[in-house]
């Protein structure tokens, strides 16, 4: 199996939004962060993968099999959760998992009970009584118990406190450790990806800006803070912000020579958040006056 998931030229048009030629692929053993602003097309893409949306064109294959032709077979191997959407809130974990287990060939109820113990989930609790973190853990337990090889999670860390987020991200790392599973999760919290994701796909306004190794993406930029506010250097910025005492922004790593050996300039490796913030500023040309 070459790819756990391959999305090629996915296009979907809504009256006010368009997903254009979205393409990316995920290899086994990887965690891919799917980043972008709210409304950039992350959920639409994930829903398209699960055939919840009828896309206009493109191909989606999971485990080297077209989703459209092998939907049921592939769904047996995929665990999927949608952000903030939960099912039968007034039912208990036990009731819901018993029903869910009937749908999957390989559902291991003993493993589920063990995982519930491990995650601290009380199976007699109703879904509505679970905290956001517990709900994510429950979804993960379900996915792991039917031996899902691909987890597709829409904003799983959204609304979680830092400790719960850290716990969830640690669990992600453990899941892919064996090398045969992969995780695709969307988020707009880029710090989630800093110590967890191996790959990222960055979507902006329905178009993919980057897909590939996270480190390559980060290494292709430098963060620069120019205390001299040198206007001649502005042209080298990919995107920048003018503050009272300094300019700051990101530059392409190929332009680093223009900024080196200058005491007024601080150059750092950016984190994902800095890259995303500046790229979004660049791409967002609209302005308004208060």
């Amino acid at each position: 199996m070459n790819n756990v998931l391959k999305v090629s030229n996915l296009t979907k048009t809504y009256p006010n939004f368009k997903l254009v030629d979205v393409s990316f692929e995920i290899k086994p053993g990887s965690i891919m962060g799917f980043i972008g602003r709210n409304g950039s097309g992350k959920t639409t893409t994930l829903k398209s993968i699960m055939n919840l949306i009828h896309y206009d064109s493109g191909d989606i294959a999971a485990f080297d099999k077209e989703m459209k032709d092998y939907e049921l077979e592939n769904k047996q191997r995929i665990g999927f959760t949608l952000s903030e959407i939960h099912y039968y809130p007034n039912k208990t974990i036990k009731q819901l998992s018993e029903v869910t287990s009937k749908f999957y060939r390989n559902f291991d109820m003993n493993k589920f009970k063990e995982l519930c113990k491990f995650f601290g989930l009380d199976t007699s609790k109703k879904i509505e009584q679970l905290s956001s973190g517990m709900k994510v853990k429950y979804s993960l337990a379900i996915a792991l118990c039917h031996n899902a090889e691909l987890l597709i999670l829409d904003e799983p860390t959204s609304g979680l406190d830092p400790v719960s987020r850290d716990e969830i991200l640690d669990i992600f790392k453990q899941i892919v450790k064996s090398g045969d599973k992969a995780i695709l999760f969307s988020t707009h919290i880029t710090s989630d990806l800093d110590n967890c994701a191996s790959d990222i796909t960055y979507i902006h306004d329905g178009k993919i800006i980057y897909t590939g190794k996270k480190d390559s993406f980060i290494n292709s930029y430098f963060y620069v803070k120019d205390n001299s506010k040198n206007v001649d250097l502005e042209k080298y910025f990919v995107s920048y912000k003018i503050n009272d005492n300094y300019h700051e922004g990101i530059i392409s790593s190929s332009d680093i020579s223009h900024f080196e050996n200058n005491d007024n300039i601080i150059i750092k490796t950016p984190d994902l958040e800095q890259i995303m913030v500046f790229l979004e500023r660049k791409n967002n040309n609209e302005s308004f006056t208060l």
Partner: protein
Amino acid sequence: MKALLYKEFRLALHPLCYLFIILFPLMALIPSYPLCISFIYVLCAYPILFLGANKGQQSNDLLFSTLMPVRKKDIVLARLITVTILQVVFTVLFLCLLPFGKLIYDSLNQSALSSGETPPRIPGFSYDAAVSLLSFAFIGFALTDLLFFTIYYKNGKSIVLSSLLSILTFSVLVIVFTLLLPEISNQYKVFFTNNLGYQFLFLAISLLMCGLLKFLTYKSSFNLLEKVDF
């Protein structure tokens, strides 16, 4: 399919649905109550079932099913089977209670006659037309299923509109049937008396029509569901 049906009874069917199906057949015991109206109460269970238990849309019942490794047409079929089971259970209970209703009616009439009073105002055909009533119920159920399912599965959301239209349709059917009933009753004095052959022929035709309408409901509903974007 088994898993979907298990889900229907374990998660989607709210206890109120069971309560409706078990309690409303008791209407067969009310003297002079127009029997065909009783069947309308099966429709009360529909919105509750389609909303998926008492958390309403929050249950995300249809999305839950769609995300499972099952075909969309099986999702519709499982729901149609569930609804049909409710209808059959209701009808069986109703029919079981009908003789007791007649017993109450007869004893009330008898006691009124013996004491020289005017008998209770109960049209005689209420119980005579039991087999016709059954034919009416099957066609009524199938027609309302067609309406409810096709409106609901157009977007997976329109519970209010589908409930409203199916109840209205059933009400119109009740009116038409009530108007026709004396005519039917006069021509074929029935309920295990005479002309049973004709009565059961009507029943067979109505069952056939019911089957065809249910098949149409299934086909058009899953075609509609296939087009829904979640």
